[in-house]
């Protein structure tokens, strides 16, 4: 059987297709403004990559901030639950999850695979991937590279502003004072790590800690966070797909609760169709 999870994030969309035991395929693409059409397009891409047809998918769950815009999903589950489930699959002993997304940041407390508590910041860009994007753009460095660059720092600069806009200005000021880009970036990572740490600490950070989300692909931020927490954290092999994987795991669980006949009927009724918008011609769809 095949189970699909779609995680439509504010910045990146991820799809995971899994079998009962393993991840079969995954797709990671930037989220555009039009979630629905993107979900459809990406699903086609994932199916092609997996060499499957839409009809072979037994259950589909959508999660993430754009989850309501996946018309072909059987069910929606919150990203908090999906992250928890995805991490639990890799690291069953984890008690605290820190997810650094493109436009938000979450702290999740787990006990025996059950959600205990969570905190979230989606009101302020500081502490999210967006902060890193703004700073890297201001400094003229690729966001994928800032982590590695920051690791070469010998004397991290002091960046006192938490606000993205003010931190950007502070970084440029340091640059004009002759501080090296390595030291500025190390200072920036320390600042953002402190911000995330103090938010998650409100729900009491307990070992084992897992870091996930796009922000963790930045080794500089990961190191700064581990320094702040005081011990090493675990990170899944591909931190971007944790939510989509969790959604696929939920899909697997839900299938177990439905009888075979109903599942077949459901699958027959499900359509992978391109959604059209007002004022434009239909785009080609593919039936399952």
């Amino acid at each position, binding site marked *: 059987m095949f189970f699909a999870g779609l995680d439509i994030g504010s910045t990146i969309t991820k799809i995971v297709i899994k079998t009962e035991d393993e991840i079969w395929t995954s797709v990671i693409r930037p989220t555009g403004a039009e979630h629905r059409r993107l979900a459809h397009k990406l699903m086609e891409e994932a199916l092609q990559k997996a060499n499957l047809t839409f009809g072979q998918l037994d259950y589909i769950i959508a999660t993430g901030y754009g989850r309501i815009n996946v018309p072909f999903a059987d069910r929606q589950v919150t990203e908090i639950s999906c992250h928890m489930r995805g991490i639990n699959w890799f690291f069953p002993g984890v008690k605290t999850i820190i997810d650094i997304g493109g436009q938000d940041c979450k702290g999740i407390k787990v006990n025996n695979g059950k959600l205990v508590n969570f905190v979230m910041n989606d*009101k302020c860009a500081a502490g999210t991937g967006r902060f890193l994007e703004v700073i890297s753009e201001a400094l003229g460095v690729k966001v994928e590279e800032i982590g590695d660059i920051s690791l070469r720092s010998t004397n991290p600069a002091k960046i006192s502003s938490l606000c993205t*806009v003010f931190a950007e200005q502070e970084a440029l000021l340091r640059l004009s004072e002759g501080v090296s880009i390595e030291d500025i970036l190390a200072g920036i990572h320390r600042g953002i790590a402190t911000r995330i740490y103090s938010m998650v600490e409100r729900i009491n950070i307990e070992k084992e800690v897992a870091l996930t989300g796009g922000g963790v692909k930045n080794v500089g931020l990961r190191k700064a966070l581990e320094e702040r927490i005081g011990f090493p954290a675990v990170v899944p092999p591909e931190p971007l797909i944790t939510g989509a994987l969790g959604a696929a795991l939920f899909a697997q669980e839900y299938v177990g609760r439905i009888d075979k006949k109903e599942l077949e009927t459901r699958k027959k009724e499900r359509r992978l169709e391109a959604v059209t918008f007002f004022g434009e011609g239909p785009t080609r769809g593919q039936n399952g």
Partner: protein
Amino acid sequence: MNSKETLYSAGLDIGSALSKAVIMKNRTVLSSSVRPTEGNFSHAANTVLNDALEKAGLSHSDLASIGACGLGASFLAYPFTKITEISCHSRGVNYFFPSVRTVIEVGNQASRVINVTKEGKVADCIVSDRCAAGSSRILQIIAKVLKVDLKDMGPLSLKSTNPVRFTTGCAVFAETEAISRVAEGMRKEDIIAGLHQALAARISAMAQRIKLKEECAITGGGAKDIGLVRAVEGKIEKKLLVSDDPFITGAIGAALIAVEK
């Protein structure tokens, strides 16, 4: 100080966005100069002072005192008296409006609500400098997104019939929101008015924490934006006095205080 004596003094306010200087003859402003700081405090501070001196037909040796405030004040090459921005703005507003007891300052880096005495001294103060969404910086960010000149923001805002509601309190996210609203075909007027409402709500929330006095004035770069001024007036339900040149209020205060020291 002998009141018959002619005394020249300079006041500087070297802010994160703008550098301002005034030259005063006793209590009269002789000249002023305003220029963008552009990240180079030392250059901006010295240039703006020399420029103001030149306009007044004076040289540095004519000055009895120099007072300076702002983030970049310490970069000035001449000896001067360092004064806090809060004191300078209070005193500067007092110079224009002696009856004012509450000053709302909306700057590029911070917003402040200050209660002042009748001498223009600080009685109480609240500062918000942690977040660009609470300062006039957000106006510049959105002006850039909308490709609108900063000085046109106020008049445009007043033309709005249906202000857009901003759902975020973050300048970075507000930028994204503004871009989305433009893409959805919303009018610039309505987006700007919505932004003014959001910023005014923040300033007013801050003002609620300090007791607003009868006579209130608004100063700093934000006071140049009539849309923001009207929005703040609406939220605090009070009329705000605005000086002819809100940019130089702090510099005037700096000059006046330095003379006394």
